[in-house]
């Protein structure tokens, strides 16, 4: 349909149809957070295993649960692929970069970390559809929640 090619790129539809890293992680040791998009009812849960490797905190595993539209699901899937194995510091830089691409001001970049958006650039077209920005960023905000304010686990 004319006008929607920028939004529904093939790689996005691919991640939507075949989401990566679906599932849950045992909490604890994993940490998790839930995100809601009040506009459309989307719900997402991000699970993270954070492990120290060579003195740096690294996302050793990530899983995504929940339901949502093509944009929120594909963004979550692409995010999960992008953050797995990265250090927490790199992940924070990536989140800033991603939100910057979504035209959300997130302040200064971390000058010492160099991260690339890679496939995530396919989501750039979302900016032309402002109401979808919340869909695209839902997983990313939830990721930050899982790092900074995870849901308390029972033990």
């Amino acid at each position, binding site marked *: *349909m*004319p*006008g*929607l090619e920028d*939004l*529904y790129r093939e790689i996005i*539809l691919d991640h939507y149809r075949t989401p990566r890293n679906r599932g849950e992680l045992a909490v604890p040791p994993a940490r998790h957070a839930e995100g809601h998009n009040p*506009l*459309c*009812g*989307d*719900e997402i849960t991000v699970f993270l295993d954070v492990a120290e490797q060579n003195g740096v905190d690294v996302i050793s595993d990530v899983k995504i649960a929940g*339901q*949502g*539209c*093509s*944009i*929120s*699901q594909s963004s979550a899937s692409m995010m999960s692929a992008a953050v797995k194995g990265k250090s927490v510091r790199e992940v924070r830089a990536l989140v800033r970069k991603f939100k910057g691409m979504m035209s959300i001001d997130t302040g200064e970049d971390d000058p010492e970390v160099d991260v690339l958006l890679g496939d995530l650039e396919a989501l750039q077209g979302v900016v032309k*559809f402002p109401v*979808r920005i919340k*869909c695209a960023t839902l997983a990313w905000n939830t990721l930050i929640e899982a790092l900074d304010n995870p849901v308390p686990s029972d033990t």
Partner: protein
Amino acid sequence: MTVDWAAVRDDFPILRREIDGAPIIYLDSGNTSQKPRQVIETMNEFMRTSYAPINRSAYRLAGEATDRFEGARAAVARFINAPSADEIVFTKNATEALNLVVASWGGANLGPGDAVLLTHLEHHANIVPWQMLAAKQGFELRWVPLTADGQLDLANLDRLLAGAKAFAFTAMSNVLGTIPPVARLVQAAHQAGAIAIVDACQYVPHNVTDVQAWNADFVAFSSHKMCGPSGVGALWGRIDLLNEMPAYIGGGNMIADVRLDGFTTAPVPAKFEAGTPPIVEVIGFGAAVEYLESIGMAKIRQHEMELTRYALDTLTARYGDAITIHGPDNVELRGGVLSFAFRDIHPHDISQVLDQRNVCVRAGHHCAKPLMRLLGVNATARASLYLYNDRSDVDALSNALDGATDIFGF
């Protein structure tokens, strides 16, 4: 006399607005309705020539404005056949109207051991206020379940009502369109010794409303869903209940006297209208009910039933099993609210594709998350009809849906 529906459509200036060179197909009236020029012009003219405080100042301009304000109250009262205009309390929206009843009537009457009956059809506005009060005052919430086609399952109604002090239910579901048998539910409530609170936010805009025929105790609705301005809603209540109830929010206009050590309240309805009211909006609300009356609510209902039938038939004929339209199939039992699932495409994506053809529908949980969970979805797409819609709008919806098929590759 038959209504010239094309002329009605012409009353709504926004329907001539074009995006990408084509007019808007507005199918989101269940969310909020568009405004006819009669309402817009009333507000415009009032602000240009007659704006003044209400019930506070004594010069002629203020007297005139007060008369128009109270005239609007009388018009709204007449529109729902309320026995007296004093029983109409203006609020900011239906949500505040429901919160008012819960906090004031419920606050004074509900405690441990008590129960309130709700239904699985309810909008958050008729759930959350009860949950908030229940958390404070410790009473039980009970729920009327649904049948498979989205009607209230009344098999155990009497048992559910046993010992309940209030039964609060929607007169028309904003998700499924379901229209429960209001008068019968009120009667059952009264027989059980409960009061009946009707969330008529979706009903009043689309049907002839007679609160006396319902014999209800409270009825809440919003102006913005019935061709009127945003920023105003109404609570109708039985005068004896309103008189007994404690004040809700405090401030100017709702008092008879204030001393350093306490206050006494003004008579109803002022008692519940603290502060400067939505002056222009109330007057616009009056113009909206006069506009709807000039067409006739029975005719509007008839028009919407026909259009709903047409929509149900068109969509199922074209898409068969690929589309699931929730709620009753019989248009006598439902309003023109069509929540649907289309293939496996997420409602937000459906809305996106439809928007590309200027077809405006809502995608989401429609402020009814408990109902969504029962339907087993976290969102639906919803097309909702009103007096200014016609068959061409339904056709546009039907045609635009094909676009979703293309993109998501079925």
